[in-house]
């Protein structure tokens, strides 16, 4: 099994807006290893630090790495800028995708694809692929000409994230609550999209509060985060247990 993502004792702080110069520690030592072909799930209560982990992997400038290591395919990520990480094959589906007026979905994805592959993308072929991917996600073609997420409903924004994932074909897809805000059918569509995307050469790290999206995926490992730490780890059986009992039984663990 080939190692893709290797995180050791990762500590992450964020500059606190309220306190004067203090920075707040959010992640307090995370260990995580994701191999090619795997699907990992991160569960945890609101505010436990799940999105922070995603942002730290993606290199958000607000989140400072205070300790530990972060490697992708054996290479240190910490010195790389966000776009360099993306070009290595990391993709983040945002919990709250940004609205960017004036940039169409098509233009955005084509520019991104050119940046990631380093190749000049031919318009006609690209359009064909985009159309096909949109069809799969049951997105109306006209959305290709709309401005990025401007005026999109919550569910449409999430689909647009998955559309980008399908088009960019990353090695590691980080999905931050891509299923929240989606109706039952849409969850199914997105879940199909992820299933189709996933293969032996890539991996997914999925944050969710809703286990429906996981139904047709073969989850390899489950991590439970509470207050900036993984407090439990296991196989898919953990999902069921938490679904039934909540996080309560783990309260003492940390």
């Amino acid at each position: 099994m080939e190692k893709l993502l290797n995180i050791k004792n990762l500590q992450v702080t964020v500059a606190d807006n309220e306190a004067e110069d203090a920075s707040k520690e959010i992640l307090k030592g995370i260990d995580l290893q994701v191999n090619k072909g795997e699907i990992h799930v991160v569960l945890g209560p609101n505010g436990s630090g799940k999105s922070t982990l995603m942002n730290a992997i993606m290199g958000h400038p607000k989140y400072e790495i205070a300790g530990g290591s972060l490697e992708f395919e054996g290479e240190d990520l910490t010195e790389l800028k966000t776009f360099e990480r993306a070009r290595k094959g990391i993709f983040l589906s945002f919990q709250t995708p940004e609205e960017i007026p004036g940039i169409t979905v098509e233009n955005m994805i084509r520019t991104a694809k050119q940046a990631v592959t380093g190749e000049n993308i031919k318009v006609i072929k690209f359009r064909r692929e985009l159309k096909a991917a949109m069809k799969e996600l049951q997105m109306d073609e006209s959305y290709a000409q709309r401005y990025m997420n401007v005026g999109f409903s919550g569910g449409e924004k999430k689909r647009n994230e998955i559309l980008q994932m399908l088009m960019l074909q990353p090695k590691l897809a980080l999905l931050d609550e891509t299923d929240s805000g989606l109706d039952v059918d849409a969850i199914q569509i997105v879940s199909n999209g992820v299933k189709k995307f996933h293969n032996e050469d890539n991996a997914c790290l999925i944050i969710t509060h809703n286990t429906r999206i996981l139904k047709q995926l073969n989850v390899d490992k489950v991590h439970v985060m509470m207050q900036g730490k993984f407090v439990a780890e296991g196989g898919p059986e953990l999902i069921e247990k938490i679904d039934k009992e909540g996080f309560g039984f783990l309260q003492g663990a940390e």
Partner: protein
Amino acid sequence: MAQEKTYIEDIERTLYDIKNVDKSKYKSQSGLTEDIIRDISARKNDPDWMLEFRLKSLEVYNQLSLPNWGPDLSELNMDEIVTYVQPDAKMTGSWDEVPEDIKDTFDRLGIPEAEQTSLAGVGAQYDSEVVYHSIQEDLVKQGVIYTDMETALHEHEEIVRDHFMKLVPPKDHKFAALHGAVWSGGSFVYVPEGVHVEIPLQSYFRLNAAGAGQFEHTLIIVEKNASLHFIEGCSAPKYNVTNLHAGCVELFVNDGARLRYSTIENWSRNMMNLNTKRAVVGKDGVIEWVSGSFGSHVSMLYPCSVLKGENAKCEFTGVTFASKGQNLDTGASVIHCAPHTSANISTRTISKAGGKATYRSAVKVTKNAPYAKCSVNCESLMLDDISRSDTLPTMDIEGDEADIGHEATIGRISDEAIFYLMSRGISEDEARSMIVRGFVEPIAKELPLEYAVEMNNLVNIELEGTMG
């Protein structure tokens, strides 16, 4: 990861700063006297009434003082400005006859190509005189007149006399008076009733001689139920002496007519651009302004729409980009004088590298304009903390049946939006410039393709080397 502050160095503007050896055969003496005005008038072979008009304007000019608001104009020394420059070329209708060096400059500005790409006519003003001019034949057949102002003054004297500076009277402000006294060159368009000009008419104005002012006059009359799209493109080479541009644009949009007036101004960075543009719109008529201001050292430009007939409409879309050493004071004004008139003003301003961008507007609803509707939206983007962005709109509303709304925002590019684009593999520079281009996109999409491309290029040139 620390956020690096990015700075902006002005890049070479060679493409836009081409200048020819000054070969003008005549330059009026510096400063403005009655003799100079008489001299200009004689050379232009003005009818008597025009000479009278010029002299009256000079009087008004001497009485008025500089505006006590807006950008600082103290750098302007009227005595130093040579008000009239006539190039070596005579009026010509064929490209072959245009002198080589002038042609070369135009070539680099892409004028002949523009014509080839199905433009209806080209009136290119070189210094103060129109040197090249043509119009497609079918327009002539439809009765459309497109010519330079001097020709119009002689061949269509009545029409010119009825309209010339009726909308912008010389007493309007000091530079309108100056214009009335020394105007020279410009375009005249007359579209007869019911005629729709399908392809845009286009004209280029340029300033070439050092210290020369340019005072071209544009007069467009669109008769009842007719329509026209007119494009004005401006670009001037760079010189060291302060240059003045005090043009005047008068647009008459009659009942049921429609006129779109698009401009991209890219004056050189020493130009004082004090331009006056005004339209009057009749019943059910529509004026659409698309206005891009990129160049000049100082600009004061606020196209005004007088909505005179019932149901008349105004659409204004503008973008202003102020960079190092620039003080661009732009905006729009709308006067509602009839019931059910409506206006939509939408502007974007960008400032960087110490540039100063001001959005200034006036919306006036008179007692005679019940059910007037006006909505104003202006957004300002600042690319650094050494620049300035000011917004100064005024609404003056009489009566109780008007519906007026105004919205404005000021801010910078959001870090989150940049992070989002970077997470897709797009570099920080590219992410920023994508966001800026997206910001002006509502204006770009109103422009004809080649102008939209030019505007995007201008934005890119401005942003090059800016970030990183």
